[in-house]
């Protein structure tokens, strides 16, 4: 699927649409008789199919995690960490990245056609839980003929999937890498998600979720939702450094009445505008609810230690110092529960001023931590082969 254009990039990639024909029973009881997944892979699956890494994306992610498309130079969202010689080394691993159901980059979701009605699913797409994504990923795993992931890796909501994998299919992964994540959202976190949903729902073009059939688009609402989210993904320090009180237009000089716009206003508006053209409002509502509903140990008597006692894999937990949306405290809770459950776990708190977004951005220490851990994983595989 890949061809090299430079030493550290997986090069030009193409996505593949994979039809999963095994029925998928969702947590809410609805059965999807079949579903489609957009998938990209990087690297080569080894003979015993043991070197596969599963990438789990977060709220707004897609299958395009690394490399570039022939007609689009913008690299995938985790390109800094996936590629030849990078921590998720495509020379050693077979990296699998998919767009999960309920999202909007070509996999079955609110923007695709519901075969029963012949119309887009829209707001009627069934309510999803993180375990549904894990279940769909397991069907993809079967399709690819993989027995056991060398590692399941994800940040934020992706980390929740990596943890859920460890509990649901303990023998189908050797490592779970949980980055900037949490065993459940805090009230403050749910509150931010509700602000975002309310912003979308308040847009008159939302049409109670049926905007597609009405040929409308709640772009203002979705932009506002993204702007709220974006502020929470950055740190106060970084925003201060990057934008401060710089003006984009206007002046405070006496006698000047031209409208004033701060750089941060302009930046946020641009981000919101861009996102509202790329993402689907129903998908945003659906996936933020997924985040809110996630509670790792709900069915384990609310005891994380009991929950993790079902896991068999080794864990790496990573947090970022300035992340206040998924704070290092949450990652330490995961680590403590894993230690108490007697599981192999390492934890690193990376010094960063980039807030929650840090898990997507280049950072030498983060790179080292992931690299050291994963190269040990690869050594073991190659030693065993």
């Amino acid at each position: 699927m890949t061809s090299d254009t430079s030493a550290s990039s997986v090069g030009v990639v193409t996505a593949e649409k994979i039809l999963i024909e095994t029925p998928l029973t969702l947590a809410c009881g609805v059965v999807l008789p079949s579903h489609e997944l957009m998938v990209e892979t990087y690297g080569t699956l080894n003979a015993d199919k043991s070197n596969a890494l599963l990438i789990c994306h977060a709220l707004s992610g897609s299958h395009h995690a690394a490399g570039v498309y022939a007609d689009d130079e913008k690299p995938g969202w985790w390109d800094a960490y996936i590629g030849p010689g990078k921590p998720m080394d495509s020379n050693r691993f077979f990296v699998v990245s998919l767009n999960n159901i309920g999202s909007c980059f070509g996999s079955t979701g609110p923007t695709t056609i519901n075969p029963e009605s012949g119309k887009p699913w829209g707001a009627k797409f069934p309510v999803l839980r993180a375990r549904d994504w894990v279940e769909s990923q397991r069907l993809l795993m079967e399709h690819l003929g993989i027995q056991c992931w060398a590692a399941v890796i994800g940040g934020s909501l992706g980390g929740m999937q990596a943890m859920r994998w460890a509990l649901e299919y303990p023998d189908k992964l050797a490592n779970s890498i949980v980055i900037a994540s949490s065993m459940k959202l805090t009230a403050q976190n749910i509150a931010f998600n509700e602000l975002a949903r309310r912003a979308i729902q308040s847009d008159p073009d939302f049409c109670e979720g049926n905007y597609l059939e009405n040929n409308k688009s709640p772009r203002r609402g979705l932009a506002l939702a993204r702007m709220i989210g974006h502020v929470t993904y950055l740190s106060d320090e970084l925003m201060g450094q990057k934008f401060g009180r710089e003006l984009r237009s206007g002046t405070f000089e006496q006698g000047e009445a031209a409208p004033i716009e701060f750089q941060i206003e302009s930046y946020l508006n641009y981000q919101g505008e861009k996102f509202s053209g790329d993402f689907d409002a129903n998908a945003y509502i659906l996936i933020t609810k997924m985040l809110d509903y996630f509670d790792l140990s709900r069915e384990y008597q609310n005891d994380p230690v009991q929950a993790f006692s079902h896991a068999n894999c080794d864990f790496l937990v990573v947090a970022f110092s300035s992340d206040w949306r998924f704070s290092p405290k949450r990652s330490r809770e995961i680590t403590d529960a894993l230690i108490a459950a007697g599981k192999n776990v390492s934890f690193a708190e990376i010094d960063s001023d980039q807030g929650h977004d840090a898990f997507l951005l280049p950072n030498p220490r983060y790179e080292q931590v992931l690299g050291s851990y994963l190269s040990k994983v690869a050594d073991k595989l190659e030693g065993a082969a």
Partner: protein
Amino acid sequence: MNQVESTRQINDSIHSWVKPNSRVLDLGCGDGRLLAQLQKDLDIRGYGLEIDPDSINQCLAKGVNVVEQDLNKGMANFADDSFDTVIMTQALQAMRFPHLVLDEMLRIGTQCVITFPNFGHWKARAYLTLRGRMPVTKQLTYQWYDTPNIHFFTYSDFEALCRERNIKILRKQFVGEHFLDRQLKNLWPNLFAETAVYHLSK
């Protein structure tokens, strides 16, 4: 005898005191060498606590469980008696409150192993007495102003603290490199033991 040999002696003691297949917590585990050895030889389930990024990386590369945690900020995240053995090698003198760390170690672990440089060793005494300067030796390589070793104590000081806090000394071993030390370390440890290794319980 060289430093490698004395390190080997210390590790031999620790090996003989740690039970196979047990749970071990190593405070200030450095590059994870000791835990890697214990894992290999005794099949322990070990975790190291460390704050130095490079050391953490070396642990990860070795496949040793390492958790980034500042010991000076407490260890309340570990339950009582949640480990069979809690180890601290050559780090007690760098803690903000060594006596509180010691209490925490004995709360978390059924038994503890501690090693520390004996500041009562004749070389340190001679350095201070004859030169009138704070000792800078092979073991204590820092200058007084940049040393991470903020508490200097002797073998006798440590035993007094154990008595005061009702800490049981199960076993102890003294290590010295110098010929004189090797002859006399057991007879007069406070003067001839360069490093002391203690096996403690509540």
